[in-house]
């Protein structure tokens, strides 16, 4: 989902930057609040960020014959919500832009928007919706992570189709969705399963902390 350095026209770079900065600033404010209220959630924040670090470094093969990487943004979204996850994604994306030439500084805003905002927002809505409907948090986290990952790539496809609507928006969107979203389906399933495994252990080790953060299903608390 990385849009490479220099591959977005300046006006789009600015638009995505402005949106992302607002969300990341709100996320920083939320992190401060969460850490003040529940200091022991610091470790959980670190684990959520670390999970993104690991998953987004893994380039995995897909049944389409090309490679892509998962995002790991569903876990943070279910625990802390999308804005906090945007902050964690920013750290990962800066690391990759500076050291790996993956993504870039000019496209940082756009990449934060897809991996740090759209994906986590979808994951968070799915997670909250399913747990409120009485579905176990372990099942809910699978669908949250699966859709969070997939929609991150759908968001990138939209961003690129908006910036490069050649020959027209619809055709460009189809082309980018074919490159990104189709390849991503098996990876998103894998990410869902990995997130379930991590979630299961978190629930076993830190049930009280998860409950305090409001991250468990109502019937599990």
């Amino acid at each position, binding site marked *: 989902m990385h*849009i*490479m*350095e*220099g*591959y977005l026209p*300046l006006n789009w770079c600015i638009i995505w930057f402005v949106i992302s900065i607002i969300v990341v600033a709100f996320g920083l404010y939320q992190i401060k609040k969460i850490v003040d209220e529940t200091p022991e959630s610091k*470790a959980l924040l*670190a*684990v959520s*960020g*670390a*999970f*993104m*670090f*690991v*998953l*987004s*470094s*893994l*380039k*995995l*093969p*897909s*049944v389409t*014959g*090309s*490679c*892509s990487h998962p995002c790991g943004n569903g876990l943070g979204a279910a625990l802390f919500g999308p804005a906090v996850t945007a902050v964690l994604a920013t750290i990962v994306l800066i*690391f*990759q832009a*500076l*050291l*790996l*030439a993956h993504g*870039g*500084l*000019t496209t940082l805003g756009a990449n934060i928007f897809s991996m740090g905002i759209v994906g986590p927002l979808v994951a968070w809505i799915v997670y909250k919706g399913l747990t409120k409907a009485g579905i176990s948090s*372990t099942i809910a986290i699978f669908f949250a992570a699966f859709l969070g990952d997939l929609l991150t790539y759908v968001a*990138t496809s939209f961003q*690129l189709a908006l910036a*490069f609507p*050649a020959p027209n928006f619809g055709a460009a969107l189809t*082309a*980018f969705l074919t*490159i990104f979203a189709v*390849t*991503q389906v*098996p990876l998103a*399933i*894998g990410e869902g*399963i*990995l997130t*379930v*495994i*991590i979630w*299961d*252990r978190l629930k*076993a*080790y*830190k049930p009280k902390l998860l409950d305090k953060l409001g991250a468990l299903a109502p019937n599990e608390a």
Partner: protein
Amino acid sequence: MKTSTLIILAVVCIIIFVAPLIMFSGHGEDDGYFGGSDDAASEQIEASHYEPWFSSIWEPPSGEIESLLFALQAAIGAIIIGYFFGYWRGQGKEE
């Protein structure tokens, strides 16, 4: 979840990611397989005669250095997760 369920989940995950390697075995980068989707998107953009207006301020000078930095990224994440999970597990046993 039972340990056996976790192991089954992990195996399913491995199958998902090994399957493409078996399906396309014998193919490689030269005939267009296993390339990155990010690069494919960049090519799609270049096809519309777009010139990137900025390039990375630093790039890993070789594939070796790039894999070093990717391994470093995964290791940093794995250390943090492993540290806290081990800590929490020990904590749980003491209580």
